């Protein structure tokens, strides 16, 4: 019985030792490189468990297989139209040839310094062919952002060959201005705002004046129209009245003339009038004769 205990124990220990020395595990997102006496012999891209001879025959290097983003600090460049810009870029790369990578790149930091230098110099070269208006423009067709990104990616890829990595994407993340140039932009923005503010006020005045003039015009038209109608109404009434008078007085024109003359005299002679009558005037006959005929 003691024997069986020992044998079980030995079995377990053997398994553990075998696992530790003769297997290798490649995790998801990693690439394994199998080394034979330090010499890479096999690349394992599929994650899982693999057999190897124990050290020192075989050993294993694990390389990152994921997409890696490098974020160099921004630097200043000059555009074709001699404008200073600060660009902040990103580089996404992936290790595609782990053996080559192991041979040429000593450590990740060294690689990233190299990538940053390359990116800076190529961005500088490339931006020398573009103007600010190629990056920033209200007409979307003029913008060559995407073209620049692609050319940068391509340039980087061409210049990084032999390192076992692939530059998948380079993109301009942000365009900034150096402090001095920012000031000029602020100045221009202020001037532009000023202009817009004045424009708003002028537009307001213009519209207001139009509205007032329109209102005045409308009211005058309304009044003129009313006056016209009133005149017509009055005229029609007067015509009707004249007709009535005409029809009435026509019946005896002589009598009408008589009555109308009397009325006229009544109006003509007033307190200010002086009437000179002859003594022989038939009007006074009765008065002067003292009632006798």
């Amino acid at each position, binding site marked *: 019985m003691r024997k069986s205990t020992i044998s079980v124990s030995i079995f377990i220990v053997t398994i553990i030792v075998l696992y530790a020395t003769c297997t290798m595990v490649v995790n998801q997102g990693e690439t394994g490189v199998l080394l034979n006496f330090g010499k890479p012999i096999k690349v394992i891209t599929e994650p899982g*468990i693999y057999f190897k001879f124990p050290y020192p025959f075989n050993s294993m290097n694990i390389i990152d297989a994921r997409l890696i*983003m490098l974020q160099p600090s921004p630097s200043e460049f000059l555009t074709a139209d001699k404008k200073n810009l600060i660009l902040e870029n990103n580089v996404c790369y992936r290790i595609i040839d782990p053996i080559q990578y192991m041979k040429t790149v000593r450590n990740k930091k060294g690689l990233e310094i190299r990538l940053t230098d390359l990116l800076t110099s190529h961005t500088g070269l490339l931006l020398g062919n573009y103007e600010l208006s190629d990056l920033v423009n209200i007409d979307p067709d003029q913008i060559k952002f995407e073209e620049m990104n692609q050319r940068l990616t391509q340039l980087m890829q061409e210049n990084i060959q032999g390192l076992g990595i692939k530059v998948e994407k380079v993109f301009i993340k942000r365009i900034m201005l150096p402090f001095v140039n920012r000031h000029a932009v602020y100045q221009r923005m202020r001037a532009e705002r000023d202009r817009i503010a004045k424009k708003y006020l002028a537009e307001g005045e213009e519209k207001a004046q139009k509205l007032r003039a329109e209102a005045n015009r409308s009211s005058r038209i*309304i009044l003129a129209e009313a006056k016209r109608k009133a005149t017509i109404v009055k005229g029609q009434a007067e015509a009707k009245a004249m007709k009535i008078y005409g029809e009435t007085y026509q019946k005896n024109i002589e009598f009408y003339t008589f009555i109308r003359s*009397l009325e006229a005299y009544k109006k003509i002679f007033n307190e200010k009038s002086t*009437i000179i009558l002859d*003594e022989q005037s038939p009007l006074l006959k009765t008065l002067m004769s003292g009632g006798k005929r």
Partner: protein
Amino acid sequence: MRKALKYSPLLIVLLCVAIYFLSGFYTLQSGQHALILKFGKVTDRVTQSGVHYHLPTPFESALKTHVANVQTLPIQNAEYGNQERFTGDENLIVVKAAVSYDVKNLGLYLFSTNDIKKFIRSTGQMCLSQELAKMTVDDAMTTGKAILRLTVKQKMQGILDGMNTGVHIISLELTDITPPAKVSSAFKAVSDARVKKQEIIKDAEGYANTVIPKARGKAASLLSSAQAYSEEVIHKAQAKSSSFNSLLAEYQKNPHIIKNQKFIESLETIFMKATINIDSNSSQSVYYINEKPMGKEPVVKR
């Protein structure tokens, strides 16, 4: 007893083995998902909240991640400089944004990139820069906001999909879009001017709204007074006509009397008012009748 002691080493070994296998139990809280890896390789086993089992450590392991929760990530440059970006009209604008996302593919999310948050943030920044570069500063601050949100979101999703990140962008919120602090007063002046413009126009509208009704009122009164006048004129004519008609009827009965009566009535009225001079050819003297303001009664002087 001795027998038990005799077996004890084996028991201990077995117990150790049992404990080893029991270590495969794990629990997940709600909203937590676990991806099961077999010797480091992603399997399609994804477990959700509850108690689960996987083979112990060298064989399998469980990667726990919060998936159900929407995560929010600010997109702004804490790393360098200020928050200003270029707009299409070469102005500067400060944009702060936050992106909400969740995981649509846990395997990709965990293993395709070295720092998924960095990828999301950088992609967001790039898209913001690119989209703002097409807009005017006024658009970006007013009507263009909604479009900006949508296009940046779509573009981000496209790029992140292109890089197989397993991320699903839910939305992009523009938490702050403002002019740079140094020019904010000028922008304020513009919005004040915009308000002022509306005020000026409102004033003029107010004027129009009073002047025109006033004119209408005046027009109505003009018309109605004209109508009143017409009525008067016609009524007067009718009245005169009927009085003439009745007088005429009398006249036709007694022409002489009516004529005389009317004549004398008129004289009465006239002599009541006027000054009368009587000129005598023989005596050269003048008689004054009804010399005002001596009296109302006719007085004869010699």
